[in-house]
């Protein structure tokens, strides 16, 4: 479980007091817990927040290299999907500094994933890929939710608070395309690797990142558990995922297709 604020430091005060209890509950249940760093650190208070992450007593998942110099020498850490780990050189460099687990950038094709999983196995780094959920496509200094409401980021009045899954962005043809999440831009489709699970496993990937969604996330986690335990196959898993929300559009194109938005099982696309 990765907790904490990845996207916008202005969101953190709403729930930061809950984090210690959440960590304690998860640890008591025998889960591995990490605390994420912010993806884009510019302000002084954001630097301070990033520096203080280690004080929480759990592993840090860096999602920007800014977090790296704050980690005590020799500490083990994990690397999130927003750090650009595209090749063996970067993987080895991070491992030499204490990285033991890396979630690769979602846009990487399977061939590159396999190369890095092989390299990771040799140096003791677990390789994870984006398993399910809207894809994190971009991060910006500008808040799009605030812009939509004719506000600036510094006076956003929390314009994003009613869109926990992001706000749908459509083309002028009304074609679903993206979703805005404050300073972040997400995909419209939910990435779903269920169909590719055999290929991913064969490539040496040993963990899937499931990104939370407000509807049916517990069921979703159970479905992936059953998939990994061999109780469901890929097709059954996808069918069950589509039943959680029949409007959800799926994709696995970054791994397997010509472009990120593609879906290897065309029936479920728009």
């Amino acid at each position, binding site marked *: 479980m990765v907790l904490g604020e990845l996207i916008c430091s202005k969101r953190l005060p709403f729930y930061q007091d809950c984090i210690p209890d959440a960590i304690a509950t998860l640890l008591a249940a025998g889960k591995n817990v990490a605390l994420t760093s912010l993806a884009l650190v510019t302000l002084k208070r954001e630097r301070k927040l990033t520096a203080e992450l280690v004080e929480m007593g759990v592993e840090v998942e860096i999602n920007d*290299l800014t977090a790296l110099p704050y980690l005590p020498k020799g500490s083990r850490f994990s690397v999130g999907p927003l750090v*650009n780990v*595209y090749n*063996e050189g970067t993987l080895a460099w991070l491992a030499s500094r204490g990285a033991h687990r890396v979630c690769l950038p979602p846009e990487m094709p399977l061939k590159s994933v396999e190369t890095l999983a092989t390299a990771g196995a040799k140096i003791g780094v677990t390789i994870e890929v984006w398993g399910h959920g809207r894809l994190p496509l971009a991060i*910006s200094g*500008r808040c799009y939710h605030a812009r939509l409401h004719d506000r*600036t980021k510094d006076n956003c009045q929390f314009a994003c608070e009613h869109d926990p899954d992001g706000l749908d962005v459509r*083309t002028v043809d009304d074609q679903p395309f993206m979703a805005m999440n404050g300073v972040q*831009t997400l995909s419209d489709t939910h990435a779903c690797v269920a169909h590719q699970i055999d290929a991913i496993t064969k490539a040496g990937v040993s963990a899937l990142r499931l990104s939370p969604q407000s509807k049916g996330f517990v069921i979703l986690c159970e479905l992936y558990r059953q998939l990994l335990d061999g109780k469901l196959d890929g097709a059954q898993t996808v069918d069950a995922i589509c039943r959680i929300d029949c409007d959800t559009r799926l994709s696995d194109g970054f791994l397997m297709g010509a472009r*990120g938005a593609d879906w290897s099982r065309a029936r479920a696309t728009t």
Partner: protein
Amino acid sequence: MVMEIVCPAGTPAALRAAVKAGAHTIYCGFADETNARNFPGLNFDRNEMREGVSFAHAHGAKVLVAINTFPRAGDEAIWHRAVADAEACGADAVILADPGLLDHTAQTHLGLRRHLSVQAAAANADVINFYAETFGVKRVVLPRVLSVPEIAAINAETDVETEVFVFGGLCVMAEGRCSLSSYATGLSPNMNGVCSPASHVEYSDDHGVLNAQLGGYTIHRVGKNDPAPYPTLCKGCFGAGGKTGHLFEDPVSLNAEHLIPQLQKAGVTALKIEGRQRSRSYVAQVVRNFRAAVDALEAGKPLPEGMLARLSEGQAMTTGAYKKTWR
């Protein structure tokens, strides 16, 4: 000290034009996926790079070689060779973004000066100093998410030189952290050195209305006689929350010429012009104007007025994140 004008060159002819027009420094790349402007017909082969560096040096200008995409797993040798060849060609520095490539360069090309690309999105003094201590980075190209006071604050906390974009195309997203293009087309800035590639653009005429699509998604739709900007993904017209418009950014380009005095006060070393895909006449014109501006500033004279507006292809101009209200 006069602020350094860092000018793009997509071809040897553009390099020579920029040098003659007064650029202090030229940046360019090899004709392959190792640089972030990997467009057909652009960039330099090894001989052209060697000759370009010689020409620039003979005229007192420097050449920086951008090797700022993220090396593909299994193919790092292509990027390693680009660094070695840049050094062999006499480049004054390489512009890098990938930590693995920075590490390789710091260990095997000790004498080669290293700049940190905007693609690394190093947006605060702590991480900039970390790049300096770890990889010996001497200059950072700042991401386009910072206001002028924030740039001044960074310069107060680091000895690393800062270079900022002042003119040309404007990324709205933090560079090196964006895969919008590969989501829609399969080709991305990080992996392929391209964004919203022309190969995936389609125009169609629908009863006098011009549709511009990228990867099958309509990016904008304009009347036949209206200006039709290139369908760059983040500057498209979309709908959300009951509103339709340019939700991410208007079809604008960056022009920070009026901010040059503030940027100098903020401690900025170099002013960067975007546009390796631009013609040599465009490049020469922009260089002349910016050179005149920094020379005027150095001489304590007022800046020449509004010379660059007509070069922006009829597009609106913005000062981007340099003004805090842009956010």
